[in-house]
């Protein structure tokens, strides 16, 4: 009995060491700039924003109801948005419903960009002051949100959507959305 408890005391530093190894090893491969959204499981915040193309059309949060969809936050000043644009066009062609949020941008430039590169968005919101962006907790474009048919945010991806991200992360979750 005495021997056994002594063994445990001697093993304690080893166990502390192993826990630290696992913790630090995980830290090697985690990206600290990726933050989980605080809005997971919550509905898209209420807003009223103009349509990107037509100033007299206004949209509100009801556009996120009815079917699972993506919300893509982008801007013409964002190089990574350029990089992912082709892939978004491909997803749109495959029938994925994507809402675009043009974030703190110039309307003319944004329309020019979509005309030139193709428009993957079913609806394009124009958020000049970044008000919806702030309510969504956007901290860097591009960001892509998975939204279920109830208009509830289920996941946020920060960074570009490419084939790997879509196939490995987003698509499996998108299929689960109700």
């Amino acid at each position, binding site marked *: 009995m005495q021997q056994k408890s002594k063994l445990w005391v001697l093993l304690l530093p080893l166990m502390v060491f192993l826990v630290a190894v696992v913790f630090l090893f995980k830290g090697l491969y985690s990206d600290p700039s990726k933050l989980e959204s605080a809005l997971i499981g919550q509905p898209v915040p209420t807003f009223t924003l103009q349509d990107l193309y037509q100033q007299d059309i206004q949209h509100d949060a009801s556009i996120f109801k009815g079917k699972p969809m993506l919300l893509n936050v982008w801007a013409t000043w964002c190089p990574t948005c350029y990089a992912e644009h082709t892939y978004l066009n491909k997803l749109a062609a495959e029938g994925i419903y994507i809402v675009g949020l043009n974030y703190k941008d110039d309307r003319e430039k944004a329309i020019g960009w979509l005309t030139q590169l193709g428009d993957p968005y079913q609806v394009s919101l124009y958020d000049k002051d970044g008000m919806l962006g*702030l309510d969504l907790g956007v901290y860097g474009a591009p960001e892509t949100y998975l939204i279920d048919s109830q208009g509830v945010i289920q996941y946020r991806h920060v960074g570009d959507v490419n084939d790997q991200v879509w196939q490995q992360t987003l698509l499996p979750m998108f299929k689960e959305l109700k």
Partner: protein
Amino acid sequence: MRIVMLIITSLLCFASQAAIQVYEFDSKEQEVLFQQLTKELRCPKCQNQNIADSNAPLAQDLRQKAYELVKQGKDRDQVVDYMAARFGNFVTYDPPMTPATIFLWLGPLFFVFGGLVVLWHKTRVVKKVDSAPEMDTAEQAKLARILNGDKD
């Protein structure tokens, strides 16, 4: 002549191009609160900088929002909650106690408690050693004789 030109040009002062935002407050308390908040709130984009130090567009937006909220008469907790609801607890340098952060508070207590347990364990062992060699009756009798001053 060149010297004079140099002095004149060096004395010329143009308005600085860098725009420094000026915030005006209704009261001294609001200003102090705003200063405190911008130091305490962390910029999610430019990590490890607070929104007072960072000039990233997002930090500017957050400063502006914090300013508006302070102007509306919101207190510290309300502003921090507003930001945390959007950007998560990451946004504050003074995180609340949650299951994920509880170790920050309990960790030190755990180590102090562990130290006390080890200490208690050690002293108990020492005591046992002290009282270990007990005298049998013959030895006790001998001790009594010595103490009484009897000689063998």
